[in-house]
């Protein structure tokens, strides 16, 4: 924001203190370039990766609760036989939107929140490569998510299940506008993912601090890069599928019209070519978080760092060759089935590397079981359960007994909740002090953790039983006729799962309470380095200053921060680590050598306006083509505005001009 920070003691000690507020002058006729650094405008038009990260987080959390409440309704309906909480129609909408919300509006954006916030910090950069595109990505996600959910009030949400198989998604079989909203909404959030992917990859390739070679990069950053590559190449595939769906529904194209000779397997292939990479998109960021946390609390570097990096990349790569394991019962023919079955098994190998290396990281460590660490260990255990049931699916003949039953539902909630979501919670607790300068309560955190773990096992554990006893998924009711009796009876275990889901909800609620309490206690300030951390994001204040680092750190090691704090005084095979500096001292040293001229790009109206045009066009396609035209005009105007706008507001756009401030030399 074209202001120079003067890193003085005051600023360092009171990180939340606001730098000089500049008053904007006029630059767009009556509108002014939004250069405020406080107030609502500073959020709405911001292009700061940290603010955007927080905004991603808040909105994703909101959608987590939405998706969670949808899940609770599902569980209420299924608690007993012939449930009456939801009608068949509402139930179908509920699980479709539950999955869509959780996957596209919670896990992916929450990972984007962490990636946005921490990737630049972990590689020693001051922002991402394309800050305005970053802002656009956030708003596209936000508006896309809202757009998707307005379908609830405009005739009903999508009801075809999250993989929306054709031809059940055609107008004749799903006459409400729900599927249109679904397709266009995902298209919009997909644009956000694509731009985000390009942005983050460029950032990591090009903006690393001096000395940070690729193999010295924090593992979280690595996993984010792999995920962005997956997004980069997977999004266009679903884009093609969604366009065909839109043309089918809105303009009577024939892609999925069986009467015209269409092959319904076309959609399945396109969806899963995207869909399988997608599941690794979901889980790898959390793998990254876990890989950050385990070394910190074990006081050991990540075991086999290069192998963990390569296995992450390998998962990403092999993940492109296994999609048809979702189609083992679709009638592909035995050769394809056998090939995909074996390929799927292969993916357990790189994933196993992660599990084993995490375990070996802890082995022989000096472990502190803080809340983030509990969650990280939770991931290892819970994900392994889910991964192993995944291996049982990969055996194609057995999968024909399992597919589309609750046994699959159990698998993917163990890998998704046990892998991805627990990992995200680990990230919340680990990085909260960094992001907000305040600690979350460890005591409440432990409640949070245990309720969540017990809740998730109570919820998803019984689904293994229910599924192997033959209960298909996506059934709005089950009957006692097919429930059986005795220990494995479906009725009992369905009830357990439903009760479990409320325990789980209590767990999530505890987290929200923890957040509220932490922020109410206005004064309690987190120590600068509460965990004795190891990576670059900790070599700055908490929360970081607007420009992240007073001086861009020079990197000599993987775990740079650790090596600045500790020194090996042993000799030969004998190692003895001694603390030579505290985190505070390391940061103070950086501040003492602050750089003088720091330019940051300025906020802009255009990203949010461009993003706003997308849902307008969406409504246009569904309801009224004039609206489509209006949206297109807005998009065009925003694009031109964007294209002609300099990255940084000129000095004269401030009132008074801030040119003078630029010359202020840094303190010390």
């Amino acid at each position, binding site marked *: 924001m074209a202001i120079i920070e003067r890193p003085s003691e005051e600023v360092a000690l009171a990180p939340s203190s606001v730098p000089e507020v500049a008053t904007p002058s006029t630059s767009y006729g009556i509108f002014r370039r939004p250069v405020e650094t406080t107030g609502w405008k500073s959020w709405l038009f911001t292009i700061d990766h940290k603010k955007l990260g927080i905004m991603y987080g808040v909105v994703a959390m909101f959608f987590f609760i939405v998706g969670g409440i949808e899940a609770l309704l599902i569980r209420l309906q299924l608690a007993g036989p012939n449930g009456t909480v939801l009608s068949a129609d509402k139930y179908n909408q509920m699980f479709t939107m539950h999955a869509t919300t959780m996957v596209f509006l919670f896990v992916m954006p929450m990972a984007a929140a962490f990636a946005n916030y921490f990737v630049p910090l972990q590689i020693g950069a001051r922002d991402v490569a394309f800050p305005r595109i970053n802002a656009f990505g956030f708003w596209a996600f936000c508006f896309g998510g809202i757009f998707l959910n307005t379908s609830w009030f405009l005739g009903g949400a999508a009801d075809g299940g999250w993989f929306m198989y054709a031809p059940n998604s055609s107008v004749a079989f799903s006459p409400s506008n729900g599927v249109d909203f679904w397709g266009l909404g995902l298209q919009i959030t997909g644009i956000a993912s694509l731009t985000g992917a390009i942005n983050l990859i460029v950032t990591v390739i090009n903006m690393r601090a001096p000395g940070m070679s690729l193999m010295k990069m924090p593992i979280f950053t690595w996993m984010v890069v792999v995920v962005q590559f997956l997004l980069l190449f997977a999004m266009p595939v679903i884009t093609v599928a969604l366009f065909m769906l839109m043309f089918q529904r809105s303009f009577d194209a024939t892609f999925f019209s069986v009467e015209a000779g269409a092959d319904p397997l076309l959609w399945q292939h396109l969806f899963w070519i995207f869909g399988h990479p997608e599941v690794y998109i979901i889980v790898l960021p959390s793998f990254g978080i876990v890989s950050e946390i385990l070394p910190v609390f074990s006081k050991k570097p990540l075991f086999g760092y290069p192998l963990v990096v390569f296995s992450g990349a390998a998962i990403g790569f092999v993940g492109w060759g296994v999609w048809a394991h979702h189609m083992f019962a679709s009638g592909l023919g035995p050769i394809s089935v056998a090939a995909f079955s074996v390929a799927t098994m292969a993916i357990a190998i790189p994933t196993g590397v992660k599990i084993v290396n995490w375990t070996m990281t802890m082995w022989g460590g000096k472990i502190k079981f803080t809340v983030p660490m509990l969650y990280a260990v939770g991931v290892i255990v819970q994900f392994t359960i889910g991964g192993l049931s995944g291996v049982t699916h990969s055996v194609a003949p057995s999968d024909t007994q399992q597919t589309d039953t609750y046994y699959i539902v159990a698998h993917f909630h163990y890998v998704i909740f046990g892998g991805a979501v627990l990992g995200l919670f680990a990230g919340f607790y680990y990085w909260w002090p960094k992001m907000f300068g305040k600690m979350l309560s460890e005591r409440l955190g432990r409640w949070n953790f245990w309720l969540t773990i017990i809740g998730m096992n109570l919820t998803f554990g019984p689904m293994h039983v229910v599924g192997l006893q033959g209960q298909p998924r996506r059934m709005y009711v089950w009957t006692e006729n097919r429930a059986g009796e005795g220990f494995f009876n479906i009725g009992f275990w369905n009830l357990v799962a439903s009760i479990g889901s409320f325990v789980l909800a209590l767990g999530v609620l505890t987290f929200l309470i923890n957040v509220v309490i932490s922020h109410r206690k206005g004064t309690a300030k987190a120590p600068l380095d509460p965990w004795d951390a190891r990576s670059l994001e900790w070599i700055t204040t908490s929360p970081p200053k607007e420009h992240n680092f007073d001086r861009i750190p020079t990197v000599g090691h993987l775990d740079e921060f650790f090596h600045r704090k500790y020194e090996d005084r042993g000799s030969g095979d004998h190692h003895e680590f001694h603390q030579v500096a505290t985190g505070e001292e390391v940061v103070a040293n950086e501040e003492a050598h602050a750089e003088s001229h720091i330019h940051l790009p300025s906020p802009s109206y255009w990203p949010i306006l461009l993003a706003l045009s997308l849902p307008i066009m969406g409504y246009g396609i569904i309801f009224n083509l004039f609206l489509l035209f209006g949206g297109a005009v807005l998009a065009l105007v925003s694009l031109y505005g964007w294209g002609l706008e300099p*990255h940084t507001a000129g000095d004269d756009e401030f009132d008074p001009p801030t040119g003078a401030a630029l010359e202020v030399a840094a303190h010390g």
Partner: protein
Amino acid sequence: MADTAVHSDAHIEHAGHHTSTGLSNNKLAMWMFLGSECLLFGGLISTYMLYRGRHSANLGPDQVWDIPFTSSSSFVLLMSSLTMVLAVSSANRDDDRNTKVWLSVTALLGALFVAGQVYEFTSFYREGLGFTTSLFSSSFYTLTGFHGVHVSVGIIMLMSLVGMISKNKVVGDKKEVVELFGLYWHFVDVVWILIFTLVYLIPA
């Protein structure tokens, strides 16, 4: 199109060049975008391939194609790649005048191609091949339509660029901006090379 990197010294014009790899952010981003587009067009082409034979008897590819016509419009698009590369080359010599000329010629050739496509579509339509007629027609129009939209967007961008160069309003490094547009334009041409052979020349 793209923002410049955050940079740690005050020379705004040079921003984006001081990178870990020495490569331009914008160019890297463009190449990634093009890599991603491979999967988009790949999907559309394979869908077309799957469905090209599924049509009513007398409205299949072999019946409606007009190879000489499409060959000439392909030639036009191919030549627009030449003019584009000449524009880039002029821009690299800081020759604004020729840059503008070649960019305009490129846009013109592009427009000629699009006009040819519009003509082709209307004549197919007159023969009875609507968008919804058959699987073949839906996937053909979708594939070539996507390509046509890419060309049209390119034309708009080229003309805007000509305007911006005239008014001296190009944000960032002018040479690079021209080069980026060039990459995009050539990619669209490359896609047409595939379409021309796979869709038009190889019989269903």
